């Protein structure tokens, strides 16, 4: 199972790199293939960060437009195409959130925080998966069962909502040292998934 998931992820990485090469040659079909593979991942990602279907659509649109226009900014030595896309998607979502907050500040005299996870968020883990990534996604989920609820929650709050460790300590009334230790441990567990270890030189 782990071997299969790792092999599948590596196969995906190779295919993604090949698609990106074709996109750089202005092959629209390659872009639509990449879109079909990852839009169902990045749309809920954008939605989770911005809390708006409309803005999440803009995030996905801008992300793939960026890939089309500036795909040559991808540097293979810095990681997989998927990791690059994820970092880009997060950046686009943060830009949209900043713009929205600025507009709200202009209108209301105050900013707004990114929307938190819906209450059912934790229940969503383990439901639908993107078919092309299915085996790998299941493997990731299995691996991350070792993460405690608190570790996962801290990572999510920090990753999706940009909460600093000191903000988290204040909000959750947990000592800052504990927050740091839990986050470091959570990240360590993320890095210990078999697929991640398989990427290391």
């Amino acid at each position, binding site marked *: 199972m782990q071997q299969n998931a790792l092999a599948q992820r590596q196969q995906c990485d190779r295919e993604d790199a090949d698609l990106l090469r074709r996109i750089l040659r202005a092959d629209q079909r390659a872009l639509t293939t990449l879109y079909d593979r990852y839009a169902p991942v990045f749309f809920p990602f954008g939605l989770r960060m911005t809390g708006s279907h409309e803005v999440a659509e803009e995030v996905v649109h801008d992300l793939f437009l960026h890939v089309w226009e500036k795909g040559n900014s991808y540097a293979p030595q810095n990681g997989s195409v998927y990791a690059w896309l*994820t970092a880009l998607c997060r950046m686009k979502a943060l830009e949209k959130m900043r713009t929205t907050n600025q507009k709200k500040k202009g209108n209301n005299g105050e900013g707004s925080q990114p929307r938190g996870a819906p209450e059912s968020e934790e229940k969503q883990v383990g439901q639908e998966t993107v078919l092309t*990534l299915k085996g790998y996604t299941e493997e990731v989920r299995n691996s991350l069962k070792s993460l405690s609820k608190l570790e996962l929650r801290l990572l999510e709050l920090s990753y999706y909502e*940009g909460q600093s460790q000191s903000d988290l300590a204040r909000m959750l009334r947990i000592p800052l040292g504990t927050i740091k230790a839990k986050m470091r441990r959570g990240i360590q567990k993320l890095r210990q998934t078999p697929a991640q270890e398989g990427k290391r030189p």
Partner: protein
Amino acid sequence: MKTEERHAQLELCIPYVFGRLNPGNRKQFEAHLQTGCEQCKRELAELYEATALLPLLLKQEAPPSGLRQRLLSRLSSKRSEPPRGTKPTPQRDVVETPAAQKPSHSWYLYASVVMGTLIIIGLLFFLNDQLRTTGELEKKLNDLQAQVQQQQDILGILQAQRVEMLQLASVEAGSEAFGRIFWEPEKRHAVLQIVNLPAQPIDKQYQLWLMKDKKYLRAGEFDVNKEKSNVFAVMTLPVGERQEIEGFAVSLEPRGGSTEPSGVIQLRGATK
């Protein structure tokens, strides 16, 4: 660099990836990366890979199908127009053909698509040679290119090794409206054919729903701009396997779609 300094820089990798460094520290850390520190670069690459796992834990959801077409239209316009003159191109969710008699076989749909593609390709060549200079014609060309792309998508679905099909019937007695959906379970790509539904008001849009576990999941929006038309729309379904799908429904919703049906169900079809 001393070991302690290297250790201090490595400590900055996590807040850097999470975007939590203040501008001064960020600038300093990026300057450090510019020196070519392989250890920090490797650490960053691993952290980006690790954090990229988090979105995989969210429930996957395809964006509305119109987004794909909008993106493709934008790409076409980017390619065919000079950068300064890029104009927004209209969203092309659907291909509309003249009113049709109720077809009874899927070969009809297949043949229509093939013929349509050939005609549009011919038009493209004609337009490309004759009329490439004016903005209006470029816009038409972009629309046609988007239509060709959609026709190719439809053909791709219909030519798949495994294709499922379901008829959608009107809920209203005496209505001539009906529909049919073809989908490829593995990729979850679907072609929706809608015949004789009334054109929607300007602030509304038709929405396809997939029923699973007695819940309605949004499967995409489409427009019907002409009365008595035969509309094709390409969708990406939230699930693909027939045994997971209880049925499909179509309702009229506010433009942009709803998270659950708020309008009257117009068409419905059950798999079981």
